[in-house]
């Protein structure tokens, strides 16, 4: 069987697709828990080579059974160690060999994430690998696998448009404002509401180097705290009329039963382009403000449209990502196959050296001829190894290579 050793690589885990959050949250492991689990796996079942990845959406064990140590009842053994007390109705997935490799590459690229293309997972994969590396537990195959997975994650983000277009409401609210009023560095922006959503938008706005940021809230102290953090100004809702009339961008992020920003506020105000983005439900900005000269109005439905668009673009890009992953899996597979041949390669090297030494001794050659012969032997061996490397990309087995080599040795005693 080709890649028989390689099949000892596996991934065992659960993610947002296979388990509900009430189950996942039980097995979201802290750094300390991950360390304890990893060492228990090594000491109790002999799984020396392992990496444990645990995020809010997945808990996965990547392992490599060295030699013939793989237990026949792998699933049960792992289930008890990684997911103790897991209800019988939930079945973690177990992939071997290239399937495991494919899975990790998809995870690192963000293709297996709940929000396709998100970049945080790449950092989490890196952290999981580094933790294992620090504990000395990944082994050669897992080290190669994770290093390549990190490369694949970066490559897919560079070569596809997977990471373009944001899926967050706050980021898309800012995107809309930018499309209307352009650069924000000379603009006045008003955020109505200092709650969680308001704070998120305000932070996105600050990242865009907004000229003047004003935050209004029912509880002024809350607005002041946020304004202090973001170098903005704070005020009570009583300032709404004057603040709206002065602003270029108005973001509504406040919980109220009725709209607080109404068209009448703008009557008699100087004519200029104003962008109103309402991200609160129920709506805090009356859609009729969009009828005022130079005013644009968007609400949460419009933002959903943008988010959905970004999501479908990412799904399209995901297929390109999968193509890259297939080629990377092949690359990894060929590399591992070649690595598997290293004892044979060493044997070939030794045989070449022995023949050379014997021949030169018999002929008692001059020093100049001796070094030429050594160079020639090295080059011939190099050609053989190149051929071997190329053949490792195809389905040639170790046994076939050995048979060919032995034939060669027998015919050339």
């Amino acid at each position, binding site marked *: 069987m080709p890649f028989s050793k390689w099949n000892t690589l596996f991934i065992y885990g659960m993610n947002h697709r296979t388990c509900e959050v009430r189950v996942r949250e039980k097995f979201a492991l802290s750094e300390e828990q991950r360390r304890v689990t990893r060492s228990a796996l090594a000491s109790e079942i002999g799984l020396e080579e392992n990496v444990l990845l645990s995020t809010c959406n997945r808990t996965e064990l990547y392992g490599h059974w060295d030699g013939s140590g793989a237990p026949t009842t792998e699933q049960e053994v792992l289930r008890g160690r990684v997911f103790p007390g897991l209800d019988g109705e939930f079945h973690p997935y177990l992939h071997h060999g290239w399937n495991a490799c494919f899975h990790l590459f998809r995870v690192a690229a963000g293709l297996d994430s709940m929000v396709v293309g998100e970049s945080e997972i790449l950092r989490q994969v890196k952290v999981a690998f580094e933790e294992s590396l620090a504990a000395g537990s990944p082994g050669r195959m897992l080290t190669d696998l994770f290093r390549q997975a990190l490369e694949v994650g970066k490559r897919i983000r560079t070569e596809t448009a997977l990471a373009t277009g944001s899926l967050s409401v706050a980021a898309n609210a800012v995107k809309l404002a930018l*499309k209307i009023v352009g650069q924000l560095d000379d603009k006045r922006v008003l955020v109505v509401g200092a709650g969680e959503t308001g704070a998120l938008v305000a932070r996105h706005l600050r990242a865009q180097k907004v000229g003047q940021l004003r935050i209004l809230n029912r509880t002024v102290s809350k607005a002041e705290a946020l304004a202090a953090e973001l170098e903005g100004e704070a005020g009570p809702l009583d300032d709404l009329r004057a603040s709206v009339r002065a602003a270029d961008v108005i973001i509504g992020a406040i919980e109220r039963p009725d709209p607080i920003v109404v068209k009448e506020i703008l009557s008699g105000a100087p*004519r200029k*382009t104003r962008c109103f983005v309402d991200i609160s439900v129920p709506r805090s900005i009356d859609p009729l403000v969009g009828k005022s000269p*130079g005013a644009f109005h968007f609400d949460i439905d419009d933002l959903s449209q*943008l988010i959905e668009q970004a999501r479908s673009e990412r799904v399209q890009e995901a297929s390109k990502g999968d193509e890259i992953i297939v080629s990377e899996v092949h690359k990894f597979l060929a590399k591992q196959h070649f690595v598997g041949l290293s004892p044979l390669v060493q044997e070939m090297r030794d045989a070449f050296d022995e023949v050379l030494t014997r021949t030169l001794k018999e002929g008692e050659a001059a020093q100049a001829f001796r070094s030429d012969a050594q160079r020639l032997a090295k080059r011939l061996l190099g050609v053989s190894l190149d051929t071997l490397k190329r053949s490792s990309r195809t389905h040639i087995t170790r046994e076939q290579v050995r048979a060919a080599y032995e034939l060669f040795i027998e015919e050339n005693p």
Partner: protein
Amino acid sequence: MSELNDSLRVLVPLFYQAAVFAYWLRAEVSGRHPRGIPILVTVAALLMHLLLLIARGRMVEQAPWTTYYDTLSALAFVMTATYMIVELISRSPSTGLDLLPLPAILVTYACAFGPAEPRAFPVSEHAPFVLHTVPAIGGIAAILVSGMYGLLYLRLERAMRQKRFGRLFERLPDLETLSRMNYAALVVGLVLVTAAIGWGATWYGDLFEKIQLTEPKIMFTLIVWVILLFPVFGKLTRRWTDRATALTAVVSMSIVAISILVTLLPFVKFHGHR
């Protein structure tokens, strides 16, 4: 010179079309196409076009816009050069796909249907000819560019009001930038057209006994000039919205286009290159 003229009359339209194609590719491949290629092709087209203008000018020892077709060709050159400057100095997304087709059509039409050899134009021998025609061609090009930006502004604004966030939304610069480009080109157009009218009025009197204000070209130019004053004063008094400026630019562009077409009419004498 004649051989160079013949070769360039074939090559220049081809390069303009290649530039439009390169911008189309960039827009379709959404930024992953190398950014430099469309710019390089456009600059190459401009350099060849400049050579063509020089060659045709040398052939008649006059300014190279003595025929109707040569005027269109010069207009295309100025429009493209203006666009290229905007593209190089602004950091906003490219609008080449929207702006370059018009000059490409003009230059292709001029090279395909215009006379192979340039013709000498008696009026061009008068010294103020260049003083009048250079700002006139520059002004018309600026008004056309302003109109194109105005059109883009109106298209994007409409898309946003209808909550359509498709390709146009992703591809075009923001409304503020489009409005700034629209207004800047409009002001340049107004200044140059004013200069052209001023020189034209002075020079006209030297050649003709009576100024014919009813000549369609003069009439349309004066109408455009008056129209262009509105957004400028409107902006100064802050009573004019970006949308109104864009609309004015589109209307001005349409009138200018008509004024170019009417010079083909048989009764247009002075501006008819006859």
